[in-house]
């Protein structure tokens, strides 16, 4: 097993509670901090989505109770359209940044990357702590945007100027929009710093024997994502800074001359609204992949464990991840087919968009290949992993519609788009987060989660997300524009109202099913069955250390790795799994 390969200098252990759990430099504590931050954000984001759904299903209903909670968002019990749009903006921002960019990468990555490569710590523990606290500050500032005069911004999470550049363009476009920009700027900085830590740690802190191809696919996911973050977040940071200057310091990067908003001529000129879109989507499209790539790693990892099989085409999986990461930087223009961008530019973006479907198809094929000839153990994490594959396919294929310019012209900014990305980067990624939570909970907290509650949670959520998001596509096919506060103003929208009511009911049921998860989580923390060091009979390094892992993970003895990450069911071996630390003889 592990052998002492060097005398490790002892890192001074923090003595105080604050040093240990608040301003901690331990990557595991930081991972958990990110995890709980993401959970809090997911709760906020889900509640916002329910408010959105209320307005869409029953636009003329009065909600006096809600008015007591949000006195500025309602008048006479009716939800104001600007409150609806503020919720749309904040739901998107909360979910995309604080949940999907945080949970798969910063939370699980921080906790398990060092352990899985056999390192005691991240290379820069202080920087890691700074990254978390900047992210936390960004979260607080974002929440604060809800409570300033005028409320939260209404321009959507894509924040297109000039709507977002001019305070008088709508309620929430004043202080709320400034806070939004500050929050996202700080978030970008945190993510950028975090990515440096991930990259350097992966490249320099792998233990003896841990070659790159022996790294679990989770590590490849985190590494690829860190590379994407390193290149993508600074672009959004700069774009946000320029917009902030436009708003507050009389600059005009995104405002053309001659704008008149609410009767007032806006000073400035020479700027271009399309410049923001190019900068935003140069970040925004890779963002989609920096959400889904670490999830892909988790799914492969969980799947190998419970299929009791090596991952099918390990090398192809790594190549596909890197290909998706690289191609992800070349297709941002597909968000802009009808933006006024030269229609010839679309030709290249469209072909590249469909080409990125190829590595995605390879990954799907390999997950099916991993299950082929398997001996599947249907644990809760495995159910979520299988559910992920279904959702990834369902959400992915509609990308082939939207990637074609002529069809995008029909479906752009309709619920077809909303359905597509909720399916693939929304709930598919959330299924990955659930799989990871159920899978690593025993390691992180030392207890097993309840399987019956877990399975119930899976079934309700799986049925729920299809019931919610398939009708989104139907709304889109019928032409329903997104971000509409109601369907009352258009004859072609009125017949769609029953679908909205159905979706809202499905959304409430699915959200309620998440209470089972919350209950299971809290109950298992206190009362779950004690987990051993390796309850799933898995192979990678996180299952060689004590549960929960001690400070510096390996108790002074760094492991030596002799095998690939997924040696399951090796013929002739005594057990059906061989851990990475087991020597070959």
């Amino acid at each position, binding site marked *: 097993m592990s052998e002492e390969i060097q005398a490790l200098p002892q890192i001074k252990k923090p003595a105080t509670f604050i040093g240990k759990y608040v301003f901690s430099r331990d990557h595991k504590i930081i991972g958990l901090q990110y995890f709980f931050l993401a959970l809090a954000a997911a709760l906020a984001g889900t509640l916002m989505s329910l408010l959105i759904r209320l307005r869409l299903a029953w636009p003329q209903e009065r909600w006096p109770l809600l008015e007591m909670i949000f006195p500025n968002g309602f008048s006479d019990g009716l939800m104001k359209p600007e409150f609806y749009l503020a919720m749309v903006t904040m739901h998107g921002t909360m979910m995309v940044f604080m949940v999907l960019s945080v949970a798969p990468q910063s939370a699980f990555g921080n906790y398990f990357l060092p352990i899985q490569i056999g390192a005691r710590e991240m290379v820069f523990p202080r920087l890691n702590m700074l990254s978390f606290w900047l992210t936390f500050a960004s979260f607080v500032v974002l929440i604060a945007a809800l409570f300033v005069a005028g409320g939260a911004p209404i321009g959507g999470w894509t924040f297109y100027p000039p*709507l977002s550049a001019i305070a008088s363009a709508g309620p929430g476009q004043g202080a709320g929009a400034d806070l939004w920009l500050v929050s996202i700027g700080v978030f970008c900085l945190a993510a950028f710093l975090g990515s440096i830590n991930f990259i350097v740690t992966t490249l320099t802190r792998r233990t003896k024997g841990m070659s790159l191809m022996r790294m679990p696919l989770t590590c490849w996911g985190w590494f690829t994502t860190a590379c994407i973050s390193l290149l993508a977040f600074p672009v959004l940071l700069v774009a946000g800074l320029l917009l902030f200057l436009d708003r507050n310091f009389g600059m005009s990067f995104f405002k053309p001359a001659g704008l008149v908003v609410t009767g007032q001529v806006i000073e400035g000129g020479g700027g271009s609204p399309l410049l923001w879109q190019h900068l935003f989507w140069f970040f925004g499209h890779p963002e989609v992949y920096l959400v889904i790539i670490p999830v892909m790693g988790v799914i492969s990892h969980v799947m190998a464990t419970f299929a009791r099989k090596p*991952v099918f085409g390990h090398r192809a999986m790594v190549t596909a991840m890197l290909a998706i990461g690289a191609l992800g930087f070349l297709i941002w223009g597909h968000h802009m087919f009808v933006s006024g961008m030269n229609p010839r530019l679309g*030709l290249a973006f469209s072909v590249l968009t469909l080409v990125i479907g190829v590595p995605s198809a390879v990954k799907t094929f390999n997950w099916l290949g991993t299950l082929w000839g398997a001996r599947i153990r249907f644990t809760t994490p495995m159910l979520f992993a299988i559910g992920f594959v279904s959702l990834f396919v369902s959400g992915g294929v509609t990308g082939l519609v939207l990637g074609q310019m002529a069809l995008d012209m029909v479906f752009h900014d309709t619920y077809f788009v909303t359905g597509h990305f909720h399916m693939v980067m929304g709930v598919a990624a959330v299924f990955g987060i659930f799989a990871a939570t159920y899978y690593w909970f025993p390691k992180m907290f030392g207890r097993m989660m309840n399987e019956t509650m877990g399975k119930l949670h899976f079934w309700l959520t799986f049925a729920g997300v299809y019931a919610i998001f398939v009708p989104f596509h139907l709304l889109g*096919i019928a032409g329903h*524009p997104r971000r509409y506060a109601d369907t009352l103003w258009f004859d072609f929208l009125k017949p769609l109202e029953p679908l909205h009511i159905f979706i809202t009911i499905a959304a409430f049921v699915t959200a309620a099913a998440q209470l089972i998860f919350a209950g299971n989580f809290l109950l298992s923390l206190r009362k779950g069955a004690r987990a051993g060091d390796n309850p799933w009979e898995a192979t990678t390094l996180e299952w060689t250390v004590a549960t929960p892992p001690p400070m510096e993970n390996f108790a002074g003895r760094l492991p030596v790795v002799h095998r690939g990450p997924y040696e399951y069911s090796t013929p002739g071996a005594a057990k059906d799994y061989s851990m990475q630390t087991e020597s070959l003889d």
Partner: protein
Amino acid sequence: MKICELKLVIHSPLPTPHSPPPLPTLMSRLLAIAIWLTAIVTAGLFAWSKWRLPESVAAHSAMIDHQFKITLAVIGVGFLLAHAALGYVVWRYRAKDGERASPSQGNARVEFILAGCVAVVFIALAITGQRVWARLRLNQAPPGAVQIEAVAQQFVWNFRYPGPDGKFGRTDPRLYRDADNSIGARPGPLGLDPNDPLGKDDIVTPTLVAPANRPISLSLLSKDVIHDFYVPALRMKQDAVPGMKINIHFTATREGRYEIACAELCGQFHHQMRAYLDVKSPRDYEEWLKKNGKQ
């Protein structure tokens, strides 16, 4: 009651160390069926539900609808195949006591062939899709097309016709008078310069009136934020961006009144930004022009 219990006892197999535990079998069957059912219902809803593409009156819509059908068929096949396979492996390969999984680590040849096939299909889709786009957007409006300007502003559409001289007059943002929006108003909501003779005969209306079966060349502009000219009945969508003049063209084939919406979030009352496209017979259109152009 007693008999039921007895039956249960008789029929339940005795647990032996080597028989597979009942729960994995149940789970594998349930999950496989759920996956297949989800796929069939989803595909069925796409294929046969009453929620379909809106009726179209644009000359180009047959081309788009055809491309959509082909794409739906391709992704439908991929979607159903993937779910059929996923359900199959879930059904077939559950854990059984004492049995080991296949140690297979992959098959590069199968993988290459599959990736190749997928690439061919996807790129073929992209190329056929581009042909549709090219015919719509990469050529100019045919000569003799009716010239109209669409000017968006927070939550209203304005349309301008050049009048008998065929030329648009000068406008000035400082002259916008949104309140005075009757058809003959000067400077009106578009700020027509009263000193420019070219603008004297311009017609500014809140409704897009167009002749049937004649190509329309529409220039999109915006006074404040980004809007999007969206006519479900035309299968058409294009942003109107302040500071830019974006030209599109189309031909409406059937007379009638169709809704124009805004498809790019433009503020508080985005969902109320409605106008109408009024497609008239060529004769009615000329009459309308004459009636409104005199003022």
